[in-house]
């Protein structure tokens, strides 16, 4: 079992950071806003040397978390070694504080489907992802955290719940988790489970980051009269997600928390405002802990 090798140099602060997207990159380099850490998607830098040049400058001043969207650890056809080599090259340049990805799949032989697609939860999938996480950690030479997905559908063949699946994956691979609070809320509404009970069943010691992102409600195409929550990352964090975040902090303690906003990107100040709100929520749950900026 591989648990990843190289220790990282700067741990992520236990406060709220911001997803750094290309439109904000030059602004961050020029103004160095008071943000405790940034998260990036390495895939947006792979063919963009100018952005990499700016990213290196960001990494000189901020801890950076690398959140992959194309590694596809759930692919039945194996990992894309070339993609891992390219991600490794970015990682070697900026020495991030954490590297993570998703419990999902997005590649089919010779194709990238540009989405995080669902997996059946059973022992075979645990074995596959466990094996792939080990391979990713070896290829990147550092631990690889995995994040719970947002769901619109599940599989009849699943034999375990999502928290059971994540726990089994942690036991098998030794990996650690990114706990996406908004995904839990969204999936609980879409799939009809209790979000707090889901949180209760997570292996809390394995959680290294919380994520918060926006979603949008629309008519459920599958059920007339019902509402479906769609994971757009294009709106502020919702009140139910903030409540669930407070609940998770009460249960597990404060962790580095990411504000994710990928579409309809607002000014950077809006993202920083959301991060400050996350810090205030954390401080309200754990009095005396006021993250510094």
């Amino acid at each position, binding site marked *: 079992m591989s648990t990843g090798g190289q220790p990282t140099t700067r741990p992520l602060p236990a406060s709220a950071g911001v997803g750094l997207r290309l439109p904000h990159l030059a602004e961050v380099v020029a103004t160095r806003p008071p943000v405790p850490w940034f998260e990036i998607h390495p895939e947006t830098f792979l063919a963009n040397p100018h952005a990499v040049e700016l990213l290196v400058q960001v990494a000189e001043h901020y801890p950076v978390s690398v959140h992959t969207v194309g590694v596809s650890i759930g692919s039945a*056809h194996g990992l894309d070694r070339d993609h891992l080599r390219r991600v490794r090259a970015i990682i070697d340049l900026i020495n991030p504080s954490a590297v993570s990805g998703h419990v999902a799949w997005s590649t089919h032989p010779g194709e990238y489907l540009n989405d995080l697609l669902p997996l*059946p939860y059973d022992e075979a999938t645990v074995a596959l992802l466990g094996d792939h996480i080990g391979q990713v950690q070896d290829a990147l030479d550092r631990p690889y955290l995995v994040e719970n997905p947002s769901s619109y559908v599940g599989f009849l063949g699943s034999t375990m719940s999502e928290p059971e699946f994540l726990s089994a994956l942690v036991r098998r691979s030794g990996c650690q988790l990114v706990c996406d609070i908004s995904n839990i809320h969204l999936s609980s509404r879409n799939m009809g489970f209790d979000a707090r009970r889901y949180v209760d069943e997570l292996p809390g010691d394995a959680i290294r980051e919380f994520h918060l992102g926006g979603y949008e409600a629309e008519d459920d*195409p599958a059920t007339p009269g019902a509402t479906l929550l769609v994971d757009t990352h294009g709106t502020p964090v919702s009140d139910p997600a903030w409540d669930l975040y407070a609940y998770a902090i009460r249960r597990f303690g404060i962790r580095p928390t990411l504000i994710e906003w990928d579409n309809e990107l607002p000014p950077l100040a809006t993202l920083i405002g959301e991060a400050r709100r996350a810090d205030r929520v954390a401080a309200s749950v754990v009095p005396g802990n006021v993250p510094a900026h």
Partner: protein
Amino acid sequence: MSPLTETQRLVRRAVVLGDTEAARALLVGGEDPTKRLAIHHRHYRASLVRTLLDRFPALTWLVGSEAVTSAAISYVTEHPPITPSLSEFGQSFPTYLAERPGLDALGYLTAFGELEWHVGTVSIAVDVPGLTIESIVAAANQDDATLALQPGVRYVHAAWPVHELMRFFLSGSAPDRYELRREDAWIEVRGARGEFHIHSLDASAWVFRRELQAGKSIASAAEIAADVDAGFDAGAALGRIIAAGLVAAVHSAE
């Protein structure tokens, strides 16, 4: 085929082609989960069409949003991305667009789209300080020395002066009517760090620079350029390249 392999084959079919029915027996989620699976198809299509529209604003300006969007919808179905790096997606889209009924009469469309692709690529390149004549002479004292040009340089040969069309787009000053005459265009696109320039060269200078970029020695590139124009002056051409800061490195043969 493992159960997961078969599941992913069916879900892939739903995501790329919109055929969700074959996955019906696998799914749970609402009264008709195939309609929820279609959300992934919608996202796949919308996000990649947006990627193409963002990458080809000049093509969209030239032939209209409706034509480009319609072609993009078909393109993303027939040509899924091959890597997770979406800035590499769509290089063949201009050719695909130019073959669409109604657009196939526009002989310059592929070249115009390829020029736009190169503009996008060089704009995010990173250049280095250009070498001086002294450092090049010191390093390139062998006949088979080669020059590495700046990373953000591309050479485009088109049968139409598509760079003129691009200038209209970039300046926002297109005339009401413009007759594009077929004539060879030897175009150099150069850029870095968010900026770019488009130059028209004469054929021999273009060939010389392109051959240097391809790794030919100075002597070989000059020979090839002289085949295009017997009066080609390699010394003067090399001087212009150096003065423009185009030479990033010199590689002497071992």
